[in-house]
């Protein structure tokens, strides 16, 4: 190595902290840490606070829908515009700061380097920046609640012209500016994260860890990162145009029109342009939320069935296929926009084509379970719950993929029912499965199984009770985004069902407190975990619990096996670790 002037060696050491001693001070160790494990936990806890904020907002919505006149302590009566604020912030916080943040930023950051046998992410400083940028975006988003006019009303999809005019509503002033700014900052943070994930996956794998030996979790994080890389740049451009329309007087999204009887001063823009740009991001975003869940489900199902994952290669190609098709279907969110029937037909066909890789995955999960020696531990329960929700949420997809069915259903409760099951609850079940599965590795202690089971059954039954009836509400014509349903005569027969959903929501939210209690108590008081409590095969289980600063204690592992070698005939145990050279010796 060519030494530069001034002693290059020492400086290089300073730039590669992950390869050296762990930082000592509290701030370097826990706050501005460069360690991917600490950053992963930071992401996870950010998402944990966000999910409780988002859940609280949804509870307020459910309460308002069935008791519109209720005066809530501290919050008072919920006005229609407040209801729209709740819709907007619930959706935005959940999609960006929970479903995008926890599975990828949280678990991906923590476990991708360990599972591929790397000491850290490729660019630790960028990784830290990525988290703190996300944190900044989160603060800016929350700030929208507290400014004059409150948070915006335009929904998480931010459709123009509502989102493009300062005077369009009480929250559309500063609140909407903060909302867009937050999303733009989040885009930049996600792009930094995706850059790190892709480089790490391609360039940091240990010896013998070929791409086709990576655990499916790593594949899912890799594909998710690629989707993020392609999608967030487009959302960023959409956001820049929106900010220009709002603050510089341009007319990208604003056609000629009046507001409160006065000309807006804009003309010549197209509100549909926003929809195209937004959904070009928005549909891949759905897969950004669910793909890591698929990876975790595969990992957990294989481990607790004591069987190799059925059709590893098919699983990889199905994920790539879903990622690819995900970029060609954005128009199915816009069947209502008056697009040409031929265009709608093309989008419809592409959308239904996604059913094929999805079905392959489902089939392979069931194939993995088939005649396995299934152990119903909490992570396994949530992984099975994931498959169940993925199927039942996915089946309403082909309904909505058809323009003729989508047009009557589009603005009804059917659509929230569909997407909450598949991208909301299924993805959350993926996060739960990952939490219960990796908790021993992350915190060195076991979670309580009984509480895990209680949490699982209440959450599974509770979420089904919330979202299954919602399909019927939609079919019966109950509109979405309406703040008051009790005043419309044709909706009166639906009130009992709505009330049932609200009760189910209260029970489900309460059950999450069991999870929170279990999580926090087990962190400090749970029984000590061994290095490999699940007898799993992937590299994170070969290292100490919790893993040392450089993941493997001064050496890099060498990989000899695929990721899911369970019940291998002739092997001494019912699993073969990925770095186990023993069975290779005879080779």
């Amino acid at each position: 190595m060519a030494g530069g002037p001034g002693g290059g060696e020492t400086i290089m050491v300073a730039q590669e902290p992950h390869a050296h001693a762990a930082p000592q001070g509290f701030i370097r160790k826990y706050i501005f840490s460069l360690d991917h494990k600490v950053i992963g936990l930071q992401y996870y806890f950010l998402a944990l606070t966000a999910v409780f904020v988002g859940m609280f907002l949804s509870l307020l919505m459910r309460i308002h829908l069935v008791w519109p006149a209720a005066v809530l302590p501290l919050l008072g009566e919920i006005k229609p515009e407040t209801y729209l604020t709740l819709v907007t912030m619930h959706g935005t916080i959940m999609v960006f700061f929970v479903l995008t943040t926890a599975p990828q930023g949280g678990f991906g950051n923590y476990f991708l380097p360990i599972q591929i046998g790397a000491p850290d992410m490729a660019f630790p400083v960028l990784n830290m920046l990525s988290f703190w940028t996300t944190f900044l975006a989160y603060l800016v988003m929350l700030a929208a609640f507290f400014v004059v006019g409150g948070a915006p009303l335009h929904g998480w999809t931010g459709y123009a012209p509502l989102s493009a005019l300062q005077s369009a509503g009480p929250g559309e002033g500063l609140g909407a500016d903060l909302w867009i700014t937050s999303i733009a900052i989040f885009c930049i943070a996600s792009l930094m994260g995706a850059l790190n994930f892709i480089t790490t996956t391609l360039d940091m794998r240990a010896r013998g860890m070929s791409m086709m030996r990576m655990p499916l979790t790593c594949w899912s994080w890799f594909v998710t990162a690629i989707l993020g890389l392609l999608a967030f740049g487009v959302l960023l451009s959409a956001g820049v145009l929106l900010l220009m329309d709002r603050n510089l007087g341009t007319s990208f999204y604003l056609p000629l029109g009046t507001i409160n009887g006065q000309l807006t001063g804009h003309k010549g823009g197209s509100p549909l342009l926003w929809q195209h740009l937004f959904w070009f991001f928005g549909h891949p975003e759905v897969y950004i939320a669910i793909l890591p869940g698929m990876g975790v489900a595969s990992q957990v199902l294989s481990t607790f069935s004591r069987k190799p994952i059925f059709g590893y290669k098919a699983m990889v190609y199905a994920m790539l296929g879903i990622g690819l098709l995900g970029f060609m279907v954005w128009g199915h969110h816009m069947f209502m926009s008056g697009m040409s029937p031929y265009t709608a037909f093309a989008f419809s066909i592409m959308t239904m084509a996604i059913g094929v890789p999805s079905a392959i995955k489902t089939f392979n999960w069931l194939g993995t379970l088939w005649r396995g020696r299934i152990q119903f531990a909490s992570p396994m329960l949530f992984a099975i719950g994931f498959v169940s929700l993925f199927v039942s949420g996915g089946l309403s997809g082909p309904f909505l993929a058809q323009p003729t069915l989508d047009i009557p259903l589009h603005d009804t409760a059917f659509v929230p029912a569909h997407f909450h099951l598949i991208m909301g609850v299924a993805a959350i079940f993926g996060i739960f499965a990952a939490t219960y599965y990796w908790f021993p590795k992350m915190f060195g202690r076991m979670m309580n199984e009984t509480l895990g089971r209680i949490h699982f059954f209440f959450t599974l039954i509770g979420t089904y009770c919330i979202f299954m009836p919602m399909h019927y509400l939609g079919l019966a014509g109950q509109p979405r985004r309406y703040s008051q349903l009790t005043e419309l005569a044709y909706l009166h027969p639906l009130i009992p069902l709505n009330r049932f959903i609200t009760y189910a929501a209260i029970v489900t939210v309460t059950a999450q407190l069991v999870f929170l209690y279990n999580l926090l108590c087990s962190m400090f008081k749970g029984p000590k975990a061994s290095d490999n409590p699940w007898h799993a095969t992937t590299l994170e289980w070969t290292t100490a619990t919790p893993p040392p600063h450089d993941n493997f204690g001064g050496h890099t592992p060498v990989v000899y096996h695929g990721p899911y070698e369970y019940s291998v005939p002739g092997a001494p145990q019912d699993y073969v670790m990925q770095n186990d050279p023993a069975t290779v010796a005879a080779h």
Partner: protein
Amino acid sequence: METFTPTIPAQAPSTFRGGRGDPPQVASGGDDGRSDAGPPDFGTRLRRARLALAVALTPIVMLFVSFTSAYIVRQGLPTLDANSNQLVRDWLPIPLPTQLFLLNTLVLLLSSVTLEFARRQLGRQAALAPVKGIPGVSLGTERRIPWLAVTITLGLMFLAGQWMAWQALADRGFFVATAPSSSFVYLMTGCHALHLFGGIMALLVAGAASVLHRSLDSRRIIVDVTTWYWHFMALLWIYILALLEFAH
């Protein structure tokens, strides 16, 4: 065992790789260049940085792809005219300051060349570094043109030129919000300028690293990656200019 499990012979435990059964010791990917848990060497760092750059250019491409598609779609879009209440095509062609833009293009291309020189200069410096310390060996007084500083100057000149182009547009009465066509001109040139400014910042960091006697390796990596980024920015500018000149 009666399961759907494909049976795995114990002798070939790598079956799940995808069937070909390579000898497991052979890494078909992964990081071979890294010594065991030590800091990665220069080659690894350079490869990683270049890979990261290639990845990072993707969202930049996507950003301009979405601007382009919005631009093209907007051109063909009829809009409602308030007076006649009819759909009209209102795309207003912008009289671009073409000569100034061409001059700026020349400056930018020149800066791309000088930065390439800077990159090679650093490479030469690294190659000669081991020889420098040998007693009695003189490398002569090599004439060293500060290519990095030249590039930064040219980059700033380009930005100043773009600023003048915006002034020229404003003088002709076309501001950001005048018409969709003028909005797009400012948007695309502005976004490009912002990205190039990022490149200048990176070069300043490299320059500061040189002044502060940071390691030659780190400087080489920054300059190498920024050079590729800079070439990309030059290409992107030519694309934007062609789009604005020919597609209106």
